[in-house]
């Protein structure tokens, strides 16, 4: 008995017919469970409140952020050497447009907060904002 395609090399056995047909109904789903779980954050709450006593007479001079030489607290010296290095976001897309007019995010602070901030303009300039990948290289020479 003859049949169509007899004289061609079209596969006649199923295993050969599947040779160039990946099993596309096997849809990969890995990573969906991780999506449900990310980013999970666990923390310990600490609810005690402090500095609520109206009679508290302790005062601080805030004009100098770090008082030099009058401390036995080793962290402070450490801090002076350890400039704060802030995290640069990995995913936030910063506008690259030239004509983008940034809003002033400092607006809305209380008068006191503004005054204290203006006393410390040097902090604004000294901010270093670095990506994680960059800091790793820096810290591990």
């Amino acid at each position, binding site marked *: 008995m003859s049949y*169509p*395609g007899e004289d*061609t090399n079209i*596969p*006649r056995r*199923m*295993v*050969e*017919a*599947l040779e*160039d*047909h*990946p*099993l596309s*109904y*096997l*849809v*990969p*789903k*890995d*990573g*969906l*469970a991780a*999506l449900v779980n990310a980013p*999970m954050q*666990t923390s*310990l709450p600490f609810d*005690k409140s*402090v*500095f609520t006593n109206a009679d508290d007479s302790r005062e601080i*001079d*805030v*004009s100098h*952020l*770090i*008082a030099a030489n009058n*401390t036995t607290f*080793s962290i*402070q010296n450490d801090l002076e050497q*350890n400039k*704060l290095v*802030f*995290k*640069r*976001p990995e*995913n*936030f*897309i910063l*506008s690259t447009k030239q004509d983008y007019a940034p809003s002033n*995010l*400092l607006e809305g*602070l209380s008068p006191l*907060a503004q005054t*204290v*901030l203006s006393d*410390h303009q040097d*902090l*604004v300039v000294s*901010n270093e904002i670095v990506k994680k990948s960059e*800091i790793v290289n820096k810290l591990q020479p």
Partner: protein
Amino acid sequence: MENSGHRLSISQVYQLAHEYRDHAYSVASKISSEEELKQYYTLINMSIRMFQMLKGKCTLSVVEDSKITFEMVELLIHETHNFDLAELYISSLKERLQTHQNSMCVVEEVMHCEFLLVHDLPLMRDTKFHYKIALRNCNELVQYMTSLKDEVYQNWALVFQYVGVALCIKLKQHRRVKTSFAGLLSQCGDKSQWKWFLNLCYVNYLLNERFPIPEAAIEELRSTELDTVGPRLYAWKLALNMVIQVYKDGNITEHLNEFKRFFDVNKQSLVNDEDKGCMISIAPGVTLKVDLPIIFHYKELKNILLLLQSVSYIVNCYDGKGNFSRKFLPKVHSTTQKLMKTIGTGGVSMNELDSRVQTYKSILDFCDFYKVWEEILLNGAVVEAAAASSSSSSSSNLGPSPAYTKLLQAMKVQFQGGGGVEEYTRLAQSGGTSSEVKMISLLNCYTVQAAKVSRCPGDKQAQLVEQCNKVWQQVERLLRETDLQFNPMWECTVMILWLFSHFEPFSWNPLPCSDKERAEYMSKLREFYSSNKFASGGGAVDERFKLKKALLLQVLVNYLGGRMLEHDLEEIRGISGKCFDMCRHQGGMDKVQYVVGIWHLMNCTVGMRGKDVALTNAKLEALVKQITSGEQSKAKK
């Protein structure tokens, strides 16, 4: 420097520290320029400096010192790279607390220090080195606290046992994760929020790793009560149930209904207080806060749910217009982009928002990947779709992981002419590949190699057969070790490929096998065939063997069953006719259709159905033309 000084009361300074921080958080979502980023960090910096000033210039009580240190350290950990500084602050506070006269008064403070040291800091540092140290310290801590035989410490020990598990997960010490979870769960009170929370973590972990979920954990999940765990954890439970179902390609209708009933009553509590997280009470005075925005926030949960639905429906996608996934995936895509734009209603750090954006991006990657997969099902080819790169992701990678991209590339090679063995083998052997992608690679690789055996003259087979057997051993091992064994689609596929490569009608050179193997796979075929037979009035359907309406798979099961199990000629012809017809509905099935068609032609001929013979002959003629012209155009390329 001659400044007369600006003296403020201690509570004013404390309030300023909060004001700077809270203000920064309230504007975090608006940041879109370098200038604004600088302003944000100016505020954070000011906040940290205020805390430092309180610590450096005042005599503080231990509680005050603790509170301030915790608040400042939180900023240091989340907003800066100064982890060493943060650690120094915590360690020195811990020293102060340990010299305190009455140690029982400051237990909570000490525990908080320990938690920051073995949990928060290592997680932020995120290196194997730090995880290892933290795990060692954490274990010692637990041992010490357990040895104290004091109930307060016993309770806190539970928290750190949990931290230990989290660290083991990070270190991928899977055996220890499992035994630790088991140990922890056995100490919990039955039907408690804490126990159910741990079980949710456990199940999610098993799903992430594609490990089989023990029956006890499933039972615990099932028994999780809304009234005890609260709506947020309950939403997590429902989501996990859904993932389990999607992973085993089961029917999700009942699970969707359950979600609907849940939302009817609890929607509002997921909409309100979005960023408050969930408080888990472990023991009197010991509480853990958990936040899982993608589940705890209503809009995000709905979005994820729609993504899971789409994925569940994809396999039916042989009708470009009628399939749900075609409607849902674009919707998930646009909703995700909207969520990205409206992210954060305030009160959340920019870095926290940043990590949420990361999650949104991987949702977009998933959408793109599954759109490509739809095209594969519709066209029988890997189409380098325009769908890709429509997401904001910077990489040209298709899909949420490099392994997915490589899988698509390998499939493309196979579609183009039966190759891909090398690509699949590399993928299956690579350490980073997930068990699922490995399995797909192995099965496709096996098909290609078994086809080669079928074509190969007898004297040259030995090496090819050897390769087939090697791949098959890996398939069997992987099936045993992973949750894929619970998915009937995988189980059935393994059975089909085995029969195709070991029996005469399906391969010119069937591989040798034992009677035992043969009996095993034949009995599986019987189960799958009787539950998925095309014929009308079929027998009882066993849900355990019921397959989704994946067209190729359905055709293959019926082809096998029709050829090996049926005896009635009429019945056989019915099946072969249906198979032949079905093949037309999915793209790229020409060759499968041809093989099925020849079988159908034979059945019609034997049954002396002249009209059907003529019709089938004509259809086959057309098919042959189509295939040969397709081959020619492929060859030209």
